[in-house]
């Protein structure tokens, strides 16, 4: 797969597991995922609702609601330091300063009673020991940077006086105020109009080149992935099932789930009576099958798929895929041909 730079990765997630211990049992929301993020890279994490992509991002910043949630294993290495074992005090210095996050819902992600400029200034005052006036000036500057006109006036307004797109810009200004090295964008455009969506994505892209950050783009929208990401990790039921460059994912998807996902997109040049869907449903997180988690929905399923879970294995072309089809143990020859086609 494509590496944007050969340097050491800025963020490395190794075998991360986030489990929820509830009365119903243990829900394995994130169950052993690995990925790396280089400086300046945009990594997309895609998957349907409930596949664990948001929990992954919250786990990186250690913001999962606890109890019942708990990071049950693995490492999150930021510049070589493990965030999982770090003290809460050290972690606070990382949050917002080194690793920032943009939330999905701009309507509810700002404190309704505090002027937006004040909220941006707060991030600066928390981390950079700036004075009130200096932080305020910088907040106004940030609002200008994210393309809000008459920022001096806007900074004094409260969130209810701003539109959704503007609030998302404010959120971005907040997240980027301290010039973080890594930005996690958790569905930053889901709640916005399509026109505003494009603006926000362009803005993130633009600021990424200016500040040289690594961006993790969490989304269920394959269009967003195609537009913004260098590499993509496809998640299914708490696992990464395919991890490749964006180009490879779109031109030659390997995992049957990724294929299904791309297949279910409406196609503009084909006359489709009905949109294609993936049969069946996601297994319950409380009761994960011991074999491949996609097996029961997979059109190529073999007995082995139900016996043992495949590993995420790197192929010759650098694509990592978690599927028995790409191993020596595979017996269903014909299906493999079809799958590659």
């Amino acid at each position, binding site marked *: 797969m494509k590496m944007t730079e050969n340097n050491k990765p800025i963020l490395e997630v190794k075998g991360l597991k986030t489990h929820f211990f509830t009365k119903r049992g243990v829900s394995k929301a994130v169950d052993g995922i690995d990925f790396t993020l280089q400086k300046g890279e945009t990594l997309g994490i895609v998957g349907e609702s409930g596949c664990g992509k948001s929990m992954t991002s919250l786990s990186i910043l250690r913001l999962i609601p606890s109890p019942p949630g708990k990071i049950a294993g693995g490492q999150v290495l930021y510049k070589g330091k493990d965030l999982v074992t770090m003290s809460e005090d050290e972690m606070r210095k990382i949050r*917002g300063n080194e690793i920032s996050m943009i939330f999905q819902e701009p309507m509810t992600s700002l404190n*309704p009673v505090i002027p937006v400029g004040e909220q941006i200034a*707060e991030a600066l005052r928390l981390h950079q020991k700036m004075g009130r006036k200096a932080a305020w000036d910088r907040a106004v500057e940030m609002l200008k940077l994210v393309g809000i006109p008459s920022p001096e006036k806007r900074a004094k307004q409260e969130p209810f006086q701003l539109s959704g797109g503007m609030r998302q810009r404010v959120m971005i200004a*907040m997240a980027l105020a301290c010039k973080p090295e890594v930005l996690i964008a958790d569905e930053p455009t889901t709640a916005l109009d399509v026109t505003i969506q494009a603006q926000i994505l362009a803005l993130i892209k633009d600021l990424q080149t200016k500040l040289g950050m690594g961006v993790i783009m969490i989304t269920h929208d394959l269009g967003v992935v195609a537009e913004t990401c260098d590499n993509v990790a496809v998640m299914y039921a708490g696992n990464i099932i395919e991890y490749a460059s964006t180009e490879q994912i779109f031109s030659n998807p390997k995992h049957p789930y990724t294929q299904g996902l791309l297949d279910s997109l409406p196609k503009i040049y084909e006359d489709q009576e009905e949109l294609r869907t993936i049969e069946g449903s996601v297994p319950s997180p409380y009761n994960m099958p011991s074999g491949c988690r996609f097996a029961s929905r997979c059109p190529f399923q073999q007995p082995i798929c139900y016996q043992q879970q495949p590993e995420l294995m790197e192929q010759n072309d650098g694509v990592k895929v978690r599927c028995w089809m790409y191993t020596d143990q595979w017996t269903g020859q014909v299906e493999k041909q079809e799958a590659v086609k």
Partner: protein
Amino acid sequence: MSLEAKTEQQIVIKQSISHPKESKLKDFLSILMLNKAAMVGGIIILFYIFIALFAPLLAPFDPYEIKLENKLLPPSADHWMGTDDKGRDILSRILYGSRLSMGVGFAAVSFGSFFGIIFGLVAGYYGKWVDSIIMRAMDVMLAFPGILLALAIISALGPGLMNVTIAVGAFSVPLFARIVRGSTLEVKRLEYIDAIRSLGANDMTIIFKHIFPNILSPIIVQGTLRLATAILSAAGLSFLGLGAQPPSPEWGTMLSNGRDFLFSAPYIALFPGLAISILVLGFNIFGDGLRDAFDPRMKK
């Protein structure tokens, strides 16, 4: 380029329709104005505050001066509310008494709300065993009837207006704690709390800067309603002889004094009683009005 120009345009349009900053307060006041009962309550409260502030200017006589030759005079042009058994002017005493009653009320509610808010915020925010310990302690306090708890506290501390304030304040603590905890639980789940935490804010900042201002409205409503109860309880305790001591012109004490003359000179008890009732009524209907005004469903 075109992208920026477009947003510029959109925002200009938005600006022309967006509200000025003070609109929130204006909205709130206009809803409050629509509520006739709340306005009446507010006017009553303002009237009492006015009296309390200017009692020395308004009172025609010295409230403490004993003139036995004037004792038990019925209401007249000189003494609008008559005089008591020691010849003191009842109107003057009621005017001065408003300072005591309002003072005790405000002090008790401030005391109770201060601790109640802190307990509630801490319990609601931290949850787990912190929550269990604080809220079980509050439940124990709630299990006593308020006045009984106050009696117990006063019997430990001794009678006096100061101790009445503490006692009345103490039984307001669990009520505030419960309301604040509930609101805190609700607010802390909201996304902007996650967002501010993701910026590296510590617990104190989150609790006092981001949660507290967002739960003020139920606290204000509860505070207003509690004022009524506090004033009534303080008067009640003084009536029982546990609070203000004679010759203090506290309304409860005056009421207790007038009890002996209920048949011969009913006005001695009547006027302090009316003063209490009207003030308590004022706070109650104002509190109800506030609750409606704060309720977002009432906004059109």
